[in-house]
């Protein structure tokens, strides 16, 4: 009887049932869409962070850059000799550590020993600026004609110097010194070798390098090619591509080689840390900060807060506007459902009064009302899930491209000290393009079903409460 009665009543009040179901469907669809887009944002942020951070890295330890002393130059210094009789090419490399102050290598072991730390690996980030080119000397002319002074030449008087100048190229690239004994953590962890091979644990001080695919392409390097960094010749043993997005490091060399190049013996710029339990990251962070003073510990959530650009804007929109909009629509839908159900019960006073007069207990009448509301809620839930999945599918199909910037350009620098940062004293913003998707998880579907049931229960509870308060005498009274 319950099922037949329920089916017939919903059939009789199709329009009201549809209004209730559609209201709930709209709210639930919004929740699914906002949730899936937020999940897509998080995935995009994770991709961005992992591309810079390395897979498996829970946090990094760095040391903030100190402000340069007064009078000292913080920029690289190049010296070229304008030789009187030479058109020959001159070249000069400047190798500088980047990403904050260098830390002692011994700190890596100290960090490893902290409670909650699974493993820690040190890496040295270098920035290499190579300037090469030549001067061209001006030519002296003794004619008394018009005065034409070239660069480097003198003007006025006799003899006159014409022509001359300088032609120099600047090549700026980043180098990471990698602990070859543990490549599962650190700068290379986010890279995949696509050609050649990676370092062996025996190559702690070998003059070999792995280069990023984009850098290799620009320099036409292949496995077996050689190139020089600050006069030291390296052989390319592998070409690597980042697991996601772009790599911010161009060349990877063994840590010892990087320390030699950067004149930073037994120094690292970043310590990559993996926690034993990913849920205890904040505890481990506090542990390291309190035991190793003067260091900055940056977790991926800290990094996430530095993400800016359209990804950040969209993420903020999804989490703030989207969340509140879906809550507002849901609350409105619940209210409308409850009011319509309650109003429907009021119109059925005689019906429920009659059933009570026939001996139906209040609980049975209430169950009937709640049952009808629950079916309404579930229909709304099913429609909402359908709509939400369609919206998520459309977002994924369109895949809008978002821009993510990490860090701040021209900041006082050194604070976060993640690899791939800019030159000394500042962090360069890393701009990445990410395609947004909207994955719908089982949890989101479960949430939608839960909301549908809740909506049905709220409406049913209100209607059922009214129905339960009706007296059997109402069956007679309403016809008087």
């Amino acid at each position: 009887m319950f099922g037949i009665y329920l089916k017939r009543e919903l059939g009789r009040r199709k329009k009201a049932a549809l209004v209730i179901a559609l209201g709930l469907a709209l709210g639930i669809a919004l929740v699914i869409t906002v949730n899936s887009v937020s999940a897509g944002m998080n995935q995009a942020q994770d991709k961005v962070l992992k591309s810079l951070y390395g897979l498996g890295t829970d946090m990094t330890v760095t040391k903030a850059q100190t402000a340069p002393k007064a009078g000292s130059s913080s920029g690289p210094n190049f010296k070229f000799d304008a030789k009187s009789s030479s058109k020959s090419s001159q070249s000069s490399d400047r190798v500088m550590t980047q990403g904050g102050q260098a830390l002692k290598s011994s700190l890596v072991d100290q960090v490893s020993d902290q409670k909650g730390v699974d493993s820690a690996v040190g890496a040295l980030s270098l920035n290499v600026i190579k300037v090469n080119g030549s001067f061209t000397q001006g030519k002296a002319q003794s004619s008394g004609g018009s005065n034409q002074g070239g660069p480097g030449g003198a003007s006025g008087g006799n003899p006159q110097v014409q022509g001359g100048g300088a032609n120099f190229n600047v090549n700026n690239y980043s180098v990471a010194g990698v602990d070859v004994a543990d490549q599962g953590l650190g700068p290379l962890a986010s890279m995949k070798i696509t050609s050649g091979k990676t370092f062996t644990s025996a190559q702690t001080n070998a003059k070999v390098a792995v280069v990023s695919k984009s850098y290799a392409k620009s320099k036409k390097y292949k496995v077996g090619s050689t190139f020089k960094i600050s006069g030291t010749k390296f052989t390319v043993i592998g070409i690597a591509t980042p697991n996601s997005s772009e790599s911010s490091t161009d060349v990877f060399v063994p840590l010892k080689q990087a320390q030699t190049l950067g004149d930073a013996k037994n120094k690292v710029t970043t310590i990559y840390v993996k926690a034993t339990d990913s849920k205890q990251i904040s505890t481990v962070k506090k542990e390291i900060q309190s035991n190793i003073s003067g260091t900055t510990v940056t977790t991926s959530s800290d990094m996430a807060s530095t993400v800016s650009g359209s990804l950040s804007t969209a993420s903020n929109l999804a989490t703030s506007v989207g969340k509140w909009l879906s809550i507002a629509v849901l609350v409105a839908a619940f209210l409308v459902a409850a009011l319509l159900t309650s109003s429907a019960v009021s119109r059925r006073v005689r019906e429920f009064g009659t059933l009570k007069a026939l001996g139906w207990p209040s609980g049975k009448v209430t169950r009937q009302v709640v049952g009808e509301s629950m079916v309404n809620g579930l229909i709304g839930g099913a429609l909402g899930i359908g709509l939400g999945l369609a919206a998520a599918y459309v977002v994924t199909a369109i895949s809008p491209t978002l821009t993510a910037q990490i860090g701040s350009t021209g900041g006082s620098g050194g604070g976060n000290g993640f690899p791939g940062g800019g030159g000394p004293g500042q962090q360069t913003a890393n701009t990445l393009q990410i395609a947004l998707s909207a994955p719908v998880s089982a949890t989101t579907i479960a949430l939608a079903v839960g909301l549908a049931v809740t909506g049905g229960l709220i409406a049913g509870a209100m209607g059922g409460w009214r129905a339960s308060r009706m007296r059997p005498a109402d069956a007679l009274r309403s016809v008087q």
Partner: protein
Amino acid sequence: MYTLTGVTKRYTRGKETVEALRGVDLTIEDGDQLVIQGPTGGGKSTLLQMIGGLDRPSAGSVELDGVNLATISEAKLTRLRAEKIGIIFQSFNLIPTLTAQENVETALVPLGVKPAERRERAAEALRSVGLGERLTHVPTELSGGQQQRVAIARALVKKPKVLLADEPTGNLDEGTRDDIMNLLEGLWHEYGLTFIMVTHDSSIARRAPRLATIKAGQITLTEQGTRQFAQQAQGAQQPQGVQSYDQQSYDGQQYAGQQYAQQPYGGQSH
């Protein structure tokens, strides 16, 4: 047997208190037929509500077979209504979305009767009131008289001890009224039910063996005719269900009411 002692019912509307019943004393024997008549607002329906356990008195007691309906728990009162009391309403009060058979079944739901038996008993009850061909019709597909027959089948399908009727012919034309009254009297006679009916219709009231007139909440009883039906009913066996009645009533096109359709109600005077 019903024993009403000092039954008073007060309603409060805002600051005003209305006394719908004022110390009503009444005894109704098993198998008796009592018609309650009176002006609108006199307390007829209120008295019926007290007798049917649909409402509780503000003071006094309403005893059915020694059980005081004024003081028993709500659950017991609900159960008592489900088991012992059949009610017929002026506006039929059928569930509009359910078929005639399903409407009759609703009376068996609180008794926990299994669906198959429920369907069978409902069908038998409808046949007994001449609606064997209308089982699957919803109320809007039935005439007023047919709807009231469905309501009568619903009241009787559970084999009640008491049948209450609140203006059962109030919404019917004269011809249909006579059919329904003949049917009800036939059923009362056949089952030995205690039959209590509220009516405005003087022609119906005049035919009742006992007439209770209510004015301003006070009752006046008139013994106005033979209690032959009642005595016959008391001598009859306790109802064995619609099935046993149906064996004699639903034979061919004849049903219970037809046996007692001796003469029309309208225009008669006693």
